[in-house]
């Protein structure tokens, strides 16, 4: 009791609020294993307090009005973007989604709510690796090239602002993105230095890879190394997953698809590390096979779909699905990506391209651009040994590295959200 009183008194004297005191409480994340940290849902207790719903407007952009969309993508007719808006004048934060994620994926929604609460308009952009972006807004149909993707994203951002500028008042621009969207933010920021359309005030890279190729091959390996028998045995792996869920249901008497349920099930039946790793691998392979199929069809086929064959809205896609899920990112990179860009610029080499698609490539810019900050986790599974040190060296005081959280697992943790909000307010980094 007395300690408590003394605390309050000291606070009052020093002009500190009790809130500031609470913020000093050390960061705690309930998962120590990086794979767990990545996969498992954060229990609600640690969530940042954010509004349940925010005013949102979704709109479609016809980025290339002349483009004829193949009939097999009959459900695509323009790129969806979403705007979370304030009533009055406010700065706007662009958010670029991670690999295979849409403008309204759960992680995007969390960021939108947190930033809205802090007083920003939020404009969310689907990842250029997502089928929806490839079909509607990609100029190359060969996603993964950070310079080219940045141009595509920039075009979309400009058109999106054009679309909303009469509805909201914008006092300035910020930029962020997580995972692949994080590294893309850096390249978009650099492009903006030349184009000067937005003149971003603050840019935050959340859990970006250092070298894109290295990170995706790491993710691909998680599948290959953790599913016994590899992709051709994915079925028995899937059976195991489904059976485990059924067992959990039997033991616990009920089933529901909620974070709380999964956490309870996890406490009762701790999953093995190889299983968690394979889950990340399968999820990544799913995203990349969607991307590869969409890219190939948009180009007229030849890689995993026949060239010059008409695919209609009734075409059975099962054979292509089976092929796509057996096509690793490395295959895509060597057989599709490299030849395409080599064709444009014969002086390019495979090694040269790998090196080009990394933060190393733009290191001098990153060192000098005071507006750019970094948010990362020491145990992020997409990083190679030594890469976190490299990032800390490059960003110096502008890097905030949490000890645990895996790959983007802690993005809705109260301490992480607090940092993000403070960063854009200019109080961090």
């Amino acid at each position, binding site marked *: 009791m007395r300690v408590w009183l003394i605390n309050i008194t000291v606070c009052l004297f020093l002009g500190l609020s009790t809130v500031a005191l609470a913020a000093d409480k050390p960061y705690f994340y309930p998962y120590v294993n990086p794979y767990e940290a990545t996969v498992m849902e954060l229990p609600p207790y640690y969530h940042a307090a954010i509004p349940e719903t925010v005013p949102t407007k979704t709109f479609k952009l016809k980025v290339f009005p002349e483009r004829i969309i193949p009939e097999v993508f009959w459900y695509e007719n323009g790129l969806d973007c979403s705007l979370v808006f304030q009533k009055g004048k406010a700065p706007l934060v662009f958010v670029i989604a991670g690999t295979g994620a849409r403008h309204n994926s759960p992680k995007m929604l969390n960021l939108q709510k947190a930033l809205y609460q802090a007083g920003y308009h939020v404009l969310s952009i689907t990842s250029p690796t997502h089928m929806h972006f490839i079909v509607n807004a990609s100029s190359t149909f060969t996603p993964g090239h950070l310079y080219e993707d940045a141009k595509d994203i920039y075009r979309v951002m400009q058109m999106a602002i054009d679309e909303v500028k009469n509805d909201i008042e914008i006092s300035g621009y910020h930029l962020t993105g997580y995972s692949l969207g994080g590294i893309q933010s850096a390249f978009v920021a650099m492009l903006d230095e030349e184009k000067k359309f937005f003149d971003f005030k603050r840019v935050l890279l959340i859990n970006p890879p250092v070298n894109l190729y290295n990170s995706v091959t790491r993710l691909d390996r998680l599948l290959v190394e953790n599913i016994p028998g590899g992709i051709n045995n994915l079925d028995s792996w899937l059976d195991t997953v489904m059976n485990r869920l059924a067992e959990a249901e039997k033991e616990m008497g009920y089933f529901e698809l909620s974070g709380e349920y999964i956490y309870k099930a996890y406490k009762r039946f701790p999953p093995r590390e190889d299983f968690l790793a394979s889950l990340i691998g399968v999820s990544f392979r799913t995203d990349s096979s969607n991307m590869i199929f969409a890219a190939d069809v948009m180009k007229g086929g030849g890689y*995993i779909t*026949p060239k010059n064959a008409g695919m*209609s809205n*009734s075409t059975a896609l099962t054979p292509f699905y089976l092929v796509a899920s057996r096509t690793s990112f490395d295959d895509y990179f060597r057989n599709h990506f490299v030849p395409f860009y080599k064709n444009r610029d014969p002086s390019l080499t495979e090694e040269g391209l790998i090196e080009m698609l990394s933060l190393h490539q733009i290191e001098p810019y990153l060192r000098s651009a005071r507006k750019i900050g970094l948010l990362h986790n020491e145990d992020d599974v997409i990083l190679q040994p030594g890469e976190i040190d490299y990032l800390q060296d490059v960003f110096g005081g502008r890097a905030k590295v949490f000890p645990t959280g895996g790959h983007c697992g802690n993005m809705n943790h109260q301490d992480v959200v607090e940092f993000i909000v403070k960063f854009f307010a200019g109080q961090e980094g």
Partner: protein
Amino acid sequence: MLETPSIRYAMLTVLLSVFMVSGCSTLPKTEPETQPPMHEFTEVVPQDKEFAVQVYDPLEGFNRGVYRFNYYFDKYLFLPVVRTYQFILPDYAENRVSNFIDNVYEFNNFTNNLLQLKFKQTGITLARFAINTTVGIAGLWDPATSWGLYRQTEDFGQTLGHYGVGHGPYLVLPVLGPSNLRDTTGLVGDTLAFNNLGPPYWVDDDDVTLAFTVVTAIDKRKRVPFRYYGSGSPFEYEQIRMLYTKKRELEIDK
């Protein structure tokens, strides 16, 4: 009694599927300049193995047509209606409606648990119905679950599966979505039993039954978070088909 919408529906579906089978080809249209891809199916995928995604789907052309119909139906009619419903009713009232509907449909759980000779589950279902109808005030609340008596869902499709009936050809039903011949038969059976022996028969008022059917459809759609092509996969049709088939297998085995 045969006039209730759901039965007409099921019959219409069966008729449609008979007439429209020959509709459309599911192979890519080839032209003289068509060339095989670099990664070809026959080379990349082991041909001597059956994969879970290769669900028996002889009516695929028709099914994809219905899938497309459902996409538009969902977008332009079903979801707007659901949103209006959610706008009008407070969440609290919506949850009472959901509980009420679940309680009425305990009839199907009861009959099917009984048909599968699962006496413990039949007992639980009966106890749930008794508790929720009385203590839970006509089923608006669900005290039985909080007392550890969980819902024992069974339907006639599961009952057929329990006695060894295979899933048969995959079917996409208008509005209702993924199914197969066994589960569609089950659905017809459940609907017939429900209407002729269950609550609609007890109430014996066509207007009430119709209102109940409509609200049930809205409530059911409300509770399914699925949005067409929200998965971001061009293979959504295949994935849903596989997951539906797996899910039903597990439900039957349990």
